[in-house]
């Protein structure tokens, strides 16, 4: 897996920018299109691109599979955890208003930020995990067969 120099340099630059964009989409979802799901996909694309250019071992060195698997579960737990916290505060499951009972809409904001983070984490993890699973198989077609 030794691609062209220019490709590698540009990839390194791009990966940073893609991650930055993912964070923008994640946290600007309240004001413009986007949110946890889209951000997660974009974030995963950064790592997939890195893997395509530098090889599976390299990207798994940066982001080992076992961490990916933990993240996949962590996102779901974070989302459900917000709901459980609402229940502990004496309100319905996912009633974010309970996070700030004196100013319901503030509570809603806090809740939405946390659950969107949960969505983002799980989606990033799952997309990368799926990429690892597919890329870990020996290919049938060589580069010239296309």
């Amino acid at each position, binding site marked *: 897996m030794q691609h062209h120099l220019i490709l590698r340099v540009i990839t390194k630059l791009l990966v940073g920018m893609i991650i930055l964009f993912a964070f923008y989409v994640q946290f600007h979802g309240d*004001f*413009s*299109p986007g949110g946890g*799901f889209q951000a997660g996909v974009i974030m995963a694309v950064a790592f997939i691109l890195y893997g395509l250019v530098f090889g599976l071992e390299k990207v798994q060195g940066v982001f080992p599979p076992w961490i990916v698997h933990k993240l996949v579960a962590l996102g779901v737990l974070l989302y459900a955890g917000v709901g459980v916290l609402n229940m502990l505060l004496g309100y319905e499951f996912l009633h974010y208003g309970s996070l700030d009972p004196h100013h319901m809409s503030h509570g809603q904001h806090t809740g939405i930020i946390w659950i969107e983070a949960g969505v983002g984490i799980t989606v990033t993890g799952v997309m990368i995990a*799926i990429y690892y*699973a*597919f890329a870990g*198989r020996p290919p*049938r077609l060589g580069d010239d067969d296309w």
Partner: protein
Amino acid sequence: MTLEFFLGHVNYWLFIILMMTGFYIVVSRGNYVKKIVGLNIFQVAVFMLYISIGKVTGGTAPIFPTDSQGKIKVDPDIVYSNPLPHVLILTAIVVGIATTSLGLALIVRIREEYNSIEEDDILEIEAAMAHAENEEHGSAMGGRA
């Protein structure tokens, strides 16, 4: 059929054409990858139908304008399209990609085991397997070994 009725419904009919094209690919093509592509087209066409339910003539995307401090400006003159179908379809798109990725993973494994992803070949292999089993364990018509 009045012209108004026709113009108000013609895009539903176009969605149906797209849906049925996708559905046709699923039921008529034997290649497993192509079936998944057909399924995607079928689903995406259904999504179009949903999104069109939410459209209001002269409406705009359901995002409120904000002032410089991020406060929402309420402007009664703006007509917004219905955001609910958008939310449903966001969920449905995610469900679609989840199904696609599982289907593709299965295809990869099927290719490894059967050395083909064509329905015809696989049915042939499975028929041979069933035949061999019947030879071994007694014929299917009530005979017993």
